[in-house]
């Protein structure tokens, strides 16, 4: 193979790889935030909203971390607050949301917190937004005085895709065959011991 042909082949291969790697970006219309002042707005304009009353709605994710009479919860108002990727939602960027400091008894009303196996409850909190909370080491948070569960969450079904099973079995068998071939070939080529 001439150097020119090798160069052309390598350039085509690299271009093809890049095209293949970047060419399958998802398209679609992600769910917009349900809030007048979204979490993005609150972070982008901290001075405008700092110390003011806010109403904030979104999916409760993770868990409630109870600290005495109060608890920390996290509410996402991102593209996945109604339906997450595991349920087939369009990709719509990073998660975004707000940390909420709420009375523990109110946090107990939340039945589902969002994670891989659950779409969390959609809740709405009312409270004061702090761009840099004096009580909590400068964290950006909402101190909520009221919490309503708007929609109870649910379990997310994790179906096993048959095509993945076929791929896993086929590729596994090929890998095992190569292992056996490598193992016995190597053993066969080693000098025999007495």
């Amino acid at each position, binding site marked *: 193979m001439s150097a020119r042909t090798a160069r052309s082949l390598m350039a085509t291969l690299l271009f093809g790889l890049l095209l293949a790697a970047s060419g399958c970006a998802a398209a679609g219309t992600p769910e917009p935030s349900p809030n007048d002042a979204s979490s993005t707005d609150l972070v982008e304009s901290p001075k405008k909203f700092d110390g003011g009353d806010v109403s904030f709605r979104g999916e409760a994710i993770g868990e409630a971390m109870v600290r005495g009479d109060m608890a920390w919860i996290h509410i996402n108002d991102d593209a996945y607050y109604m339906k997450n990727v595991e349920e087939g939602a369009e*990709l719509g960027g990073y998660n975004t949301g707000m940390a909420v400091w709420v009375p523990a008894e109110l946090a107990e009303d939340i039945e589902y917190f969002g994670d891989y196996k659950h779409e969390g409850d959609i809740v709405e909190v009312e409270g004061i937004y702090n761009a840099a909370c004096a009580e909590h080491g400068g964290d950006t948070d909402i101190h909520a005085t009221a919490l309503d569960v708007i929609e109870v969450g649910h379990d997310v079904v994790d179906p096993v895709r048959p095509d*993945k099973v076929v791929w*896993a079995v086929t590729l596994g068998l*090929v890998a095992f065959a190569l292992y056996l071939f490598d193992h016995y070939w190597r053993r066969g080529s080693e000098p025999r011991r007495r």
Partner: protein
Amino acid sequence: MLLRPRLDDHLVIGKYTGKVIIGIALLMVIPLLTSVVFAEWDTVLDFAISIALCLIFGFGTQIACRTERDLSWSHGLVVASGSWIVATILGAMPHWLSGHEGSYLDAMFDVMSGYTTTGLYLLQDLDHISYGMNMWRHLLTYAGGQGIVVIALTFLFKGTAGAYKVYVGEGKDERLLPNVVQTARAIWLVSLTWLVIGTVAMSITGLLLGQEPVRAFLHGLWVYMGAWSTGGFAPQSYNTLYYHALSYEIVAIVVMIAGSFNFALHWAVWTGKRKEILRNVETVSFAITLSLTVLIATFALAKAGVYPDAMTLFRKAFYQLASGHTTTGFSTIYSRAFVTQWGPVGLIATTVAMAIGASACSTAGGIKGMRIGIIFKAFMQDIRRVISPERAVVSSKFHHIKDVYLDDGLVRTTMTITIAYLAMYGLNAIVGAFYGYDFLQAAFEGVSAASNTGLSCGVTSPTMPDVMKVLYIGSMWLGRLEFMSVFALGGYIVTILRGHK
């Protein structure tokens, strides 16, 4: 005259690259088992497919590249840099199959970010990913911190003389013990001891903060891995802001500073030389530059009145700057808060901290404290030379495990690597600005990628131009391997194309 590599050269490179990829397959067994435990069957299949692909590549190369030849220096460097690329392409498979990545390029971005302990990510809807996938993300960064070649050296290489050459190619040149495989195992001994202590400390803290036992353990393990490897990945999209606790921040700071120290320093302390911490050029340099950058950021934030009191201000400034300087990338503020609250001076102070980075031969990135120390000493030596009598012999030394005298060769090598880092930081900033990002933000993000830090001010996102994604992948790779082995790979490709028979 450039000589074209012979068949035997390709075989030895293929054989050892294959061994590293078999190591990646073995690593994937851990997230697979995690998913089995939590009955995440779709994720189990993602990892089964990925393991099979890695093994096909690994065993395929063992069969196709059968040779008894040992590695030369250039082979070692090519294997180290080349295997990181192959490991990224194959390691991205679980990310892509999860459905949380916009493209395969995005998946490769996340995996390279993990291996290089950077911490930037393009994965979407992180708060809904499986435990298995989260285990893989953090394992990537933990394994990358030790060096994926170190893993292969520990378990798969049979102590060949050439093994040291791959080890050096991965950006680690400290030989803690006479044998390189023993050195790799010593690195694991230190890391695993810290793993147990760090995970227990973080899990107990998580429990006390109100987490369920299983989540407290998993979060403790993952945050520990992110901190020790100076990786900066965290299991929730809120990063370490999620925990809202000073106690969690203190444990994280201790672990990330420990992780940013040179393995030779760890080994010295491990073997009883505790005073080394106070004398080592890297710890001294780190303490000085961290103090300066914290001071600058604190002053700017105080002037802007962002935080309500001095203690809060110091807590926020120290955490973000320590995270940036150790090139960890944990944060307790929103990414965009660097722009909307911290302002230009805060951005610049953090950028400088990230650019300097931590210790050589550690899990950290950046120019490194050792090089800053050497450049400073060389500068002072030159000043002393100018003001000393003409015949005076002016010498200078620094302390790293033992006293080392400065010579021109050492200073030249140090300057070469430093200039390479600065050029890469500059290129990333200019390309970012070319695509319409604010220059300061583009510089912040570009330095973050190239110094393997992972702090973001919002530039990195799934909608970022593909050219910038590719540039950042290259920067993370170059920054982690400290250029030389990547240059060797480039030279190898050139000799294939242009070399004489």
